[in-house]
């Protein structure tokens, strides 16, 4: 016993140390990663963000240097807070608050104190920075916008938030990320890859050279430039035409699916979201719930399409073989069903398909629609067949374009009506859905979906997924999916009468007053009823003015959809704007200056003020 005590203790300590070492070195490897290591400082080298060009190589956005004041909280030494705050132009309380937030985020990692200093502030601050240990200035590059339009297309960049950092370890506090538009969609292309340098530090936090002679360091990889499909001149012109109006314009090149113009109104100057006032400006835009400048109406707005939808009713009718182009339907200044009438305006009657489209006869399309649904044994099957044909035009679902926001729109299903009418307890007839025939009722489309189906009509039966990317400059190319044709269910020969009808809209129909000389345009007006709630009461507002068109009739170069909220009848605003845009794009100059003057000087602000006035108002005047 006496011989064994010490030797036992020696062996026990050996085992104890083995266990402890195993725990520290092998089992609990938490403190082993490079960035967690307090002996190694990680420095980032940010590459230039890629530029954006328009389809004609006009520069849209480039970069400017910007300077962020950064802090690593654990390195902060006692400092003259008052002097530092006056240099930073912030209050002491604000400064303490920022510092506390940085500490909470991480004592080891850098946080932003003041973002985006301009050159003048940087100059006065940089010579005194040596006095403030733990603080340093990080150079970054900021966007510099060459144009004051297209903010909705380009989008913007913003500081990453904690949610993004947790999801994507590439980003560190204070770094920038594209958060809307092309900046978001093509973030990784534009961003490039930041370079990393590992610096060995001693216990006084002094740099003592690159860690392991820099074998883990990486060089930054520059962001790639991007060429967009938009035409800057067209974009600018569209923005001007839309002043004092709400709505949007989408123009697509039918033979490629390239988006030529994507205009939402009201919009904002993209330069507002750069620099020290960014946050102030952003808040202002974000909380403008009346004009909603950050809301992209052409991608996010779901509107009743109105009469342009009749072209689709006609196409589906032909495809389902329930109507012949020569079939005529009587219009009794409306479509009578049961004891109700769906009204129409006065025009020659009866009309065949071309005339029906040219004069936008409601009754004609109600007849066609009813025949489509009645072709099937039950209205449920009828609705679903009708829906399937429409979905082949890219309706009722996301189109798959390369911008980060969008809506499905709505093409109602039989399930929807079964639920609404409490089927099978109550049956419903096709007439309950008759408003769909003329693009009212439950049907909702986004303006880009309208432009897309117009492009499909222009192509006589197929479309390319609309896209904003024309070229990624460098070895990358644009995704293959933008080069695939999507065929609609409707056979090419069935498009002929519809296109003829759309041509007649200009020749002798609803748009005959807004003809553009020398260009054969096919179009369709739309006037859509719409409602809002004022103090909880459903109130009708002035109709939306809608227009879709493509030109030239043969070998179309542009398909366009224009939407003007509460603009009254289709040719009044939307039709004029569509014509001007087409002429601008195809000819590069405007011959109908009378129309241009009318649109540029016209304002709908009084119309938009009505629901907020608190007084009773009249509509459609």
């Amino acid at each position, binding site marked *: 016993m006496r011989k064994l005590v010490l030797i036992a203790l*020696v062996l026990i300590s050996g085992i104890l*140390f083995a266990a402890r070492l195993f725990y520290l*070195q092998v089992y609990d*490897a*938490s403190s082993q990663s490079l960035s967690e290591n307090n002996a190694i400082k990680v420095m980032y080298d940010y590459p230039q963000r890629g530029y954006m060009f328009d389809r004609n190589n006009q520069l849209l956005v480039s970069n400017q240097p910007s300077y962020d004041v950064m802090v690593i909280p654990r390195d902060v030494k006692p400092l003259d807070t008052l002097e530092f705050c006056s240099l930073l132009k912030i209050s002491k309380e604000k400064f303490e608050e920022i510092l506390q937030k940085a500490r909470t985020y991480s004592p080891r990692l850098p946080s932003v104190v003041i973002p985006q200093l301009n050159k003048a502030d940087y100059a006065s601050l940089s010579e005194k920075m040596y006095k403030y240990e733990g603080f340093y200035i990080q150079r970054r590059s900021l966007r510099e916008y060459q144009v004051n339009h297209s903010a909705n297309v380009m989008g913007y960049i913003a500081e990453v938030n904690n949610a993004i950092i947790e999801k994507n370890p590439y980003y560190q506090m204070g770094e920038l990320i594209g958060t809307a538009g092309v900046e978001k969609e093509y973030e990784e292309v534009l961003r490039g890859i930041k370079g990393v340098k590992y610096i060995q530090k001693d*216990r006084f936090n002094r740099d003592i050279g690159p860690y*392991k002679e820099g074998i883990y360091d990486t060089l930054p990889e520059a962001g790639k430039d991007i060429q967009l499909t938009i035409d800057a001149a067209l974009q600018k012109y569209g923005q001007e035409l839309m002043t004092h109006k709400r709505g949007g314009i989408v123009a697509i090149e039918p033979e490629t699916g390239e988006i030529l113009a994507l205009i939402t109104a009201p919009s904002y100057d993209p330069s507002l979201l750069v620099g020290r006032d960014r946050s102030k400006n952003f808040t202002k835009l974000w909380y403008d719930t009346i004009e909603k400048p950050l809301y992209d109406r052409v991608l996010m707005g779901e509107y009743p399409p109105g009469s342009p939808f009749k072209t689709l009713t006609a196409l589906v009718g032909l495809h389902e073989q329930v109507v012949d182009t020569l079939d005529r339907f009587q219009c009794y200044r409306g479509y009578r069903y049961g004891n109700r009438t769906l009204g129409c305006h006065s025009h020659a009657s009866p009309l065949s398909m071309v005339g029906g489209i040219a004069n936008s006869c409601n009754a004609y399309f109600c007849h066609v629609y009813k025949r489509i649904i009645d072709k099937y044994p039950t209205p449920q099957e009828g609705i679903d067949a009708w829906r399937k044909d429409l979905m082949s035009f890219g309706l009722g679902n996301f189109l798959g374009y390369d911008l980060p926001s969008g809506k499905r729109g709505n093409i109602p299903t039989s399930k929807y009506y079964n639920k609404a009418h409490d089927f099978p307890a109550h049956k419903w007839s096709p007439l309950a859905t008759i408003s769909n025939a003329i693009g009212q009722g439950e049907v909702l489309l986004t303006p880009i979906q309208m432009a897309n189906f117009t492009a499909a009509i222009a192509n006589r039966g197929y479309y390319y997924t609309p896209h904003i990317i024309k070229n990624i400059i460098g070895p990358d190319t644009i995704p293959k999916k933008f080069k695939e044709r999507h065929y609609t269910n409707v056979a090419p020969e069935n498009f002929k009468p519809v296109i003829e009808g759309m041509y007649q809209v200009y020749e002798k129909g609803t748009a005959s007053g807004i003809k553009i000389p020398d260009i054969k345009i096919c179009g369709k007006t739309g006037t859509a009823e719409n409602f809002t709630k004022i103090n909880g009461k459903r109130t009708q507002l002035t109709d939306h003015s809608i227009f879709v068109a493509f030109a030239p009739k043969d070998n179309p170069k542009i398909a366009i959809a224009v939407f003007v909220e509460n603009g009254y009848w289709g040719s009044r605003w939307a039709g004029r704007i569509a014509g001007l845009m087409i002429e601008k794009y195809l000819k590069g100059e405007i011959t109908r200056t009378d129309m241009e003057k009318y649109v540029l000087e016209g304002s709908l602000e009084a119309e938009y003020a009505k629901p907020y006035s608190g007084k009773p108002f009249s509509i459609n005047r």
Partner: protein
Amino acid sequence: MIGGKNYMRLDWLMIFIFIALVIMGWVNIYSASLSDEAKGFFDFDQIYGKQMLWIGLSFVIIIFILAIESKFYERFASVIYIVSLIALAGLFVFGKTIAGATSWFDFGGISIQPSEFVKATTALALAKYVSDIQTNLTEFKNQIGAFIILALPAILIILQPDPGSALIYAAFIFPLYREGLHGVYLLIGFSAVVLFVSTLAFGAIWVALAVLLLAGILLFRNRKRRPDFIKYILIVAGCIVFSFSVSYIFENVFKQHHRDRFNILLGKEVDARGIGYNTKQSEIAISNGGWFGKGWTQGTQTKGNFVPEQHTDYIFSTVGEEWGFTGSMIVVLLFVGLITRILFRAEKQKTQFGRIYGYSLAAILFFHFFVNIGMVTGIFPTVGIPLPFFSYGGSALWGFTILLFIFVKLDGANHYYT
């Protein structure tokens, strides 16, 4: 004699482990003290260059020790002991103060720390006293005698003040126990440690309640065997008084930095930037090693000088970072192997003197090994004592070399008495 056939009688295993530890120690000191001004391995301005010199000189010392007739150590043990005590006392007159402790003699730039050598002389004196035919450790008188031999150097060292080094003298309880000291001393010592640590961790009141509860349970279980109530009451009272005095001393006598050292150990303080810094940095460095380490001179914590005293007391953290679990385990196994081998050889000694000396050597090495690696890996409070043969420092290296090689000589000479 080391010449002729007799050299074969040296215990080459001990010598081999000694050489391995010294070389590995130097390799790690080189890494821990490497700086930009280094001009090669033999730059004597650098810490690793000096250590190279101390290692070279230690082999000269070894030759001297092995050359001397083995009987000399037993015969002159008392004289050597007294001379070493005079040297310790001389510090109060001629000593040099470094970091608050007057532990050094300064010989023209070379500092010698007598306390590193006194461990060996005390071991000799104790071995001589206990092996005396008239000494019987079961007698109280002789227990006092042995205690005085240990207490004299310990008190002189505490007065320097260097309480860490004085702690080592507690190791001599093991050779004394081996030679017949009653086991109750070991038990008392062990209970004192348990009470001490639990008082600091939970507070005196809870410890007192726990002691009372435990005594109650024991009394109840032994009630049929007519327990000696007075003994129970004395033990319980002793424990409670001890617990409260520890609490009192801790709060009122200890200085803040002593308290901090214990609080870190007990997990009451986790502030890595404050007082837990040394231990935390050392743990980070060791963790960085992983299975196989970062490689020689590649440790980031070591290079950044994050671990304080890394070439001396914290040298094992360099081993941990640069050689990983594998390297650390080799060092641990070498120590365990060396101490086990010493104990094995001690039992084989024909003289009681040789056996007691061997046990003392083993116990001292074990204490250093346990306290130092325990501290560096964060399972023992910070007590600044070196890792034998490994840590930087001439006095420490020579002190341990002398301690070890006197035993190697005694062990080699053992064969003559057969």
